[in-house]
């Protein structure tokens, strides 16, 4: 009996030690805002009280060099809407197999792969690109709600479009790429030049575009859906239009090769992808698009279902564009359209006035819409490698400098664009505009 008591006492001690033991820490690197992480943290703590998350917050450009360092800085899980980083880190051997059951998680949506072939990383949520609109402001301008990108070129929208500056707003380069892929390099850039020429550049993304639109300062804002959907769910007067040629940005999750908390890391990934975790994405302060289709049946009726939209051809844009390509198109925008934005905007205003007066402006259009780089040059591997190297150093853009090869190229684009603007101005002068 005494032996039995001792055994029982030992068992009780072990049990109470287990109960009072500190949870094991799982280090998660992310760029999600507070609203997302708090809800996920709470949900995960409830489902898996034996683990505790330590959140290391880094933006995508800053996370890449951190995860490339020795032993990956102690990070167990990387979870972020920065798809380029996942591909780059996969090449560097930074991941180990995710080890999460993919049942109920499609591998593809439209042209977008939702996991890599080795299943090292898996999409956890999607964000759609499109237009935040203020219906009242559009009505006052007499402009119908835009359905696709060319609709934004209506001159009545001059000064009333908020365009996040791709050089400064993380999600904006994909906006550029969606149009370039949908309409081709030449036509796509022509749209961007004219659109930039009548838009106001917004230097920060996120809720600032929604602010511009809800306040009526802008009638249309180019945005990711969740900023707008969240503002709408919180009661603000704003709507979101998914254009006919849309695009999705996936957030992925992966477990680092050097993870010291593999079981906890897997439990976290599994939780984020579970029905419960995916359901949290619909919170009014989050409003992301789940990647588990079964979750949509529990969401409000007007919740955008990208799987249904993809079936109708809305998401042919895939994630074939590398991070180097996105950096290139972003830089091209900055050198050609962003930095001289005031001058560009004035030229487009004059052109539209000439057009309204019935004058032939086709040659001038050519000067304002021809990109300083053609499609073939944009695919050149040496050029893309220069952008990749810049990103590995944790930089998205750098001031153009003749001290480095990439800077010299960018200065050339600036010069080329300036020449075309001068010629366009001269031709407009000739038309008396």
């Amino acid at each position, binding site marked *: 009996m005494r032996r039995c008591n001792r055994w029982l006492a030992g068992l009780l001690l072990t049990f109470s030690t287990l109960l009072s033991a500190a949870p094991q820490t799982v280090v998660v690197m992310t760029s999600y805002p507070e609203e997302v992480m708090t809800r996920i943290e709470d949900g995960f703590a409830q489902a898996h009280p034996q683990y505790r998350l330590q959140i290391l*917050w880094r933006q995508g450009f800053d996370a890449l060099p951190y995860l490339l360092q020795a032993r990956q800085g102690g990070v167990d899980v990387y979870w972020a809407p920065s798809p380029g980083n996942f591909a780059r880190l996969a090449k560097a051997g930074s991941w180990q197999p995710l080890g999460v059951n993919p049942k109920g998680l499609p591998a593809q949506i439209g042209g977008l792969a939702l996991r890599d072939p080795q299943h090292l990383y898996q999409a956890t949520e999607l964000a759609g690109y499109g237009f935040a609109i203020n219906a009242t402001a559009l009505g006052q301008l007499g402009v119908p709600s835009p359905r696709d990108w060319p609709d934004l070129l209506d001159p009545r929208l001059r000064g009333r479009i908020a365009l996040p500056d791709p050089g400064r707003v993380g999600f904006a380069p994909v906006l550029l790429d969606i149009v370039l892929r949908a309409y081709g390099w030449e036509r796509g850039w022509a749209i961007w030049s004219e659109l930039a020429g009548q838009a106001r550049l917004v230097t920060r993304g996120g809720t600032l575009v929604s602010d511009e639109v809800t306040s009526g300062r802008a009638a249309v804002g180019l945005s990711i859906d969740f900023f707008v959907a969240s503002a709408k769910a919180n009661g603000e007067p704003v709507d979101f239009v998914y254009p006919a040629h849309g695009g999705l940005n996936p957030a992925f999750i992966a477990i680092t090769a050097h993870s010291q908390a593999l079981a906890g890391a897997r439990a976290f990934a599994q939780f984020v992808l579970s029905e419960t975790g995916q359901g949290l994405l619909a919170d009014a302060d989050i409003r992301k698009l789940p990647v588990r289709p079964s979750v949509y049946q529990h969401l409000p009726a007007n919740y955008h279902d990208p799987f249904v939209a993809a079936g109708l051809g809305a998401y042919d844009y895939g994630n074939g564009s590398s991070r180097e390509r996105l950096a290139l198109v972003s830089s091209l925008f900055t050198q050609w359209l962003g930095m001289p934005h005031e001058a560009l905007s004035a030229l487009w205003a004059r052109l539209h006035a000439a057009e309204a007066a019935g004058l032939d402006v086709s040659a001038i259009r050519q000067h304002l819409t021809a990109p300083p780089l053609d499609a073939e040059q944009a695919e050149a591997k040496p050029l893309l490698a220069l952008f990749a190297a810049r990103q590995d150093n944790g930089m998205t853009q750098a001031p153009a400098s003749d001290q480095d090869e990439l800077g010299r190229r960018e200065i050339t684009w600036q010069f080329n664009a300036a020449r075309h603007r001068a010629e366009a101005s001269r031709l407009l002068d000739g038309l008396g505009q």
Partner: protein
Amino acid sequence: MTALRAAGLSIGLLTSLLASADTTHTATHREAFAQPFAGLDEGQLERFFRGRSLFRQAWVVAPSRDEAVDGLGPLYNRVSCIACHPKNGRGQAPAQGQPMRSMLLRLSLPGHDAQGGPKPHPVYGDQLNELGVPGVPGEGRAHVYWQEHAVQLGDGETVMLRKPKVELRELAYGPMDAVLTSARVGPPVFGLGLLEAIDESTLRAMASEAKPDGVTGHVNAVWSVERQRAEAGRFGLKANQPDLRQQIAHAMLGDLGITSTLAPEQNCTPAQQTCAHAAQGGDPELNALQLGDLHFYLAHLAAPARRQQTEPAVMQGEKLFSAIGCTACHRPALVTGKHPLYPALTQQHIAPYTDLLLHDMGPGLADGREDYLANGRQWRTAALWGLGLSERITPSSGYLHDGRARTLEEAIVWHGGEAETARQRYVALGAQARQAIRAFLQSL
């Protein structure tokens, strides 16, 4: 005034009519606590949005490529300001046995520091920082357990009140003996510029007024780091900060471990060696421009305008609120003086429902923590503007300094000390009259 009363206009309604439309906002949606004053020009709006970005910014562990926002910790509670002030409103007390999220724990020993402020714990400092950057252990964990008791109202109805009991676990730097703890949830952050613009002479005049029911009210005298002198305190739950800039700097250091010109030393005690040797994100980490932008943002967050003022229940509740003595401290009408930086805040008629003074709130709410002239039973009168939108904007948040009150009625019943007489009058009211007072509070 008599004519106005005859016309059925209450003091509050009059105040609302006088209040400048530029400093209030009529939005009632879930972003209503995040609206700027009307009439800001484009440059001011840009500054407001820069400040907002910083308020929502997740700060990053140094070193980082994101140099403008690195320097989190080495010891900290949360990574952003908005974490403890969700939607710019109240933080939330945790559920039974759950860890703190938008709540923090102040620490002190009996006595005062050199400036007359609370005496910090020699090892753990002034606040329990639960988290540390990689390589620096967080100080420990506080878990909250709730103890409930029933209070019977005059008509026999029962209200359940709960009080937090904090349990410290996983202490990483040794035992924490004889420490005083005070749990706090983040307060709302709108309308602060207007409170900053109230003249010190107005505070002193209110303090020296004779008041009924044993109500007194004191101005706290606190240390201004910027001006190196004692001044009237007005921010913080015990009015322990003289102005908004110092309140921001103190919170940035205490909650996020971000240094600034007003709080230039990292939050490491001599016993915390790994903390002292951790990388810094600049000197200081929050630069002067950023501190200025945060100040501008918080100073220009509009207070929500009143609603449903002409509904009979609200009007009745407003009269009762005054009649039972609540307005002795929750002042419905104040006029701001001259703000040293921002003209939009000057000479504004406002309805914050506070006097910014310290009052003894009785043993039930006492935390035992002395803070300059505030004793362990005193708290600064909480502003009540925006109260009625709280349930919509942050439905899980409670009321009072530690979020213990789950309803407005619980909050009222917790009042004691100088508010004891008013509390007794409330408790003695019938259900309909109590409901009318709550309807009035919901209209704020």
